[in-house]
């Protein structure tokens, strides 16, 4: 067979495309976390009562926590099958930097799981009675915050993918690390609802995103290499 050199950029897009195609053929993996997201939010009115004012007050927290849990729940699928069938091994053995390939996988995963969630979030926010200003900021913070969740979460998955019953451990590992994103994300939305300045929190969230974008792929690659050794 002739040796063909594929550029890293090409490999990056090939992986994204492959993951998107795989998910479209197994759509339940995208839909289930979304249903979970909706269900968690629906539980709140039952738990705290249908008082519109109360629901409005807690709407930010409810949407953010539900988004966080849903994104955590969907994480497992990011490396699991590729780990089981050996694709991951091939990726690590390839000539391209593992961190870049891993970033492609995380990006594809974000497109598949977080993006639908962001699209759905305003509808649920309206159902909880959130203000319009809040909804705009909610969309913005989710847009910046969910990639951070995916990146941090992928580190956790990379650490636990080779373990039996890794799911519970995964949540124990990554939920503490999710807290800053939750604080700045929901803080910005709360400020927006109160009519306060939101720039500070958005900038912090963006800073977390840049930080995670740089460091997380390195950690993911290192963890995957240990998982496969």
């Amino acid at each position, binding site marked *: 067979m002739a040796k063909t050199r594929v550029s890293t950029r090409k490999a990056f897009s090939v992986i994204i495309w492959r993951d998107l195609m795989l998910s479209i053929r197994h759509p339940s993996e995208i839909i289930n976390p979304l249903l979970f997201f909706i269900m968690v939010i629906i539980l709140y009115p039952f738990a705290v009562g249908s008082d519109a004012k109360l629901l409005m007050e807690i709407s930010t927290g409810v949407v953010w926590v539900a988004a966080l849990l849903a994104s955590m729940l969907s994480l497992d699928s990011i490396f699991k099958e590729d780990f089981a069938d050996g694709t991951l091994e091939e990726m690590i053995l390839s000539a391209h930097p593992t961190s870049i390939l891993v970033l492609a996988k995380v990006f594809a995963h974000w497109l598949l799981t977080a993006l639908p969630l962001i699209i759905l979030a305003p509808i649920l926010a309206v159902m909880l009675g959130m203000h319009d200003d809040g909804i705009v900021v909610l969309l913005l913070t989710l847009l910046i915050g969910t990639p951070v969740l995916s990146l941090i979460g992928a580190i956790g998955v990379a650490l636990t993918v080779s373990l*039996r019953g890794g799911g519970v*451990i995964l949540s*124990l*590992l990554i939920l503490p*690390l999710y807290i*800053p994103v939750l*604080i700045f994300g929901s803080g910005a939305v709360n400020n927006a609802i109160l009519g306060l300045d939101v720039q500070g929190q958005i900038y912090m969230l963006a800073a977390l995103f840049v930080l995670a974008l740089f460091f997380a792929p390195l950690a993911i690659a290192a*963890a995957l290499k*240990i*998982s496969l050794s």
Partner: protein
Amino acid sequence: MSIYIIDKKIMIKATWSFIQKFSSPPHFYRISGKMQPWFMAIFIGTLIYGLIGGLYLAPTDYQQGDSFRIIYVHVPAAWMSMFIYMVMAFCAAVALIWRIKLADIVLISSAPIGAMFTAIALATGSIWGKPMWGTWWVWDARLTAELILLFLYLGIFALYNAVEDKRTGSRFVSILVLVGVVNIPIIHYSVEWWATLHQGPTVTKFDKPSIHIDMLIPLLVMAISFKCYYITTMFSRARTELLERESNAKWVTKLLVPTKAD
């Protein structure tokens, strides 16, 4: 200039060979065994002095009365909780970069002690909070950050215990600890800003400790005492762990199996 460079090279070489020698398992086992009783003695001595000084000799606080005395356990424990995490992060970096076995072992032996100190800091803080703030728990920045630290420690256990091969487990844990150490300042500041946004009925008393010298000395003595306790216990755990992991090595057999004479 060139002399300086040579000097530096020799220095590095000497340091490196010292590190390698000290970090070789049998050497560490022997040295730590010799050092342990000394640390134990310092621990007990400073503990007695610190407790008497803190609980009996130190003057009563004009505002908080005698209940401030829990500071002598609470503050050193809180310091240790962070100090041990930093030690673990350092070990994690060393273990991942230079593959030094001992760093793995120190890291994993430190984790339970760090978790215990975190739990003590939280529990004593809560007990102190009841008479001072009128509530067991406030979602204050420091309290919340410390609670998250506890969960980071627990996550380390969970991960380590879930992996069958201990060496792989240690390497996983090293990565997790390093990710956590990046996150600790972020968590710390985010929680602080978050809590100042919705300021609760909290009075953070430690920010500028204008503390009397008679109160300060026992506190520092207690801090030394806790450090020595950490070193003593960490040595015990590390030595046991070392024997377990190296159970096939010659030096362990030589050490533990009685010679043919008896």
